[in-house]
């Protein structure tokens, strides 16, 4: 395990390009939360949808391994694939509108579909559930690019330059997208913000 941590992502990816499945498994373990979480925040739908998209991202990365050139950070490359896959999935989803299976609690609110593994007790779970539902609903209001920029900045903790590289745009565009995204979120979540 310690040896695994010493090997960089780029070295592992080069091994994957030679057909090393163990190296691929290590990469998956390292980055599955980032990819899954990004897909979940972007799609806002069911956990199975996020899982499906996240799997597609890793499969594409595996297939492209033989052509991989370590010219940029591995996470930048992987998140670029994630961005493309999410946008493609969103376009397909618009074509075939689906109704997610939803259910309501006694208070009439809808429960989040994505399990909150961080919540410890039932009241925490409910609070997290309400807040997460509200945040996800606010994120769903954002246009795709603003949402992607915000998720990469807020949740993946990436620098502006890296986000710009992933989204194939300039740093100033990213800052502009983030500014507008935050404005929209602030408006959508003002009830929750005033309660804090």
């Amino acid at each position: 395990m310690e040896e695994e941590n010493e090997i960089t992502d780029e070295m592992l990816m080069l091994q994957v390009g030679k057909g090393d499945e163990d190296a691929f498994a290590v990469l998956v373990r390292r980055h599955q939360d980032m990819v899954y979480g990004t897909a979940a925040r972007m799609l806002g739908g069911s956990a199975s949808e996020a899982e499906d998209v996240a799997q597609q991202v890793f499969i594409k990365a595996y297939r492209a391994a033989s052509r991989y050139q370590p010219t940029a950070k591995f996470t930048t490359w992987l998140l670029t694939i994630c961005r493309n896959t999410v946008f493609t999935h969103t376009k397909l989803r618009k074509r075939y509108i689906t109704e997610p299976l939803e259910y309501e609690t006694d208070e009439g609110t809808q429960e989040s579909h994505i399990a909150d593994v961080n919540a410890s007790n039932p009241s925490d779970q409910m609070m997290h559930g309400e807040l997460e539902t509200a945040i996800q609903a606010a994120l769903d209001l954002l246009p795709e690019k603003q949402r992607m920029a915000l998720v990469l900045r807020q949740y993946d903790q990436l620098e502006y330059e890296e986000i710009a590289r992933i989204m194939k745009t300039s740093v100033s565009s990213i800052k502009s997208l983030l500014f507008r995204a935050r404005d929209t979120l602030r408006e959508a979540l003002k009830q929750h913000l005033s309660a804090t």
Partner: protein
Amino acid sequence: MKQEPQNDHDDLDKMLARAPMPKAPAWFEARLIARLRREQARELSWWSKVKRHSVLWGVCTVTAAIVVVSGACLLLGSKYASLLNSPSVAANANDETNAAQLRRAGGLRLPGKSSSNNEKVSAALDAFKSYQEDNSLWSDSQ
């Protein structure tokens, strides 16, 4: 760009941080590897199907090529045969025509009865000559 108030920025960040990003489920890696193996197996079976049928495709292509080439040869052969079988004037008819012409030119008379017979023969020879000329024209046009 408008400077956003720092407090709002912090409050929003704090709130967003209270709902962290969902983590991948525990079975994610196992399901991913299983899906990858399934897709690889599907691609392999598709390729092996193509390879299995490649022999059949090869045989069909060769057969079709043989049929086409044979058909072309037959067509050319039948054209050549029709040229060979077209009507032509007998070789000795040319000799007789030439002999008659020579006799007329030299004032020779055919043995026999009277000059009317000679005229009949000349007319017949002239008719035959014109037939010969027509036939050569027909052959050229073929």
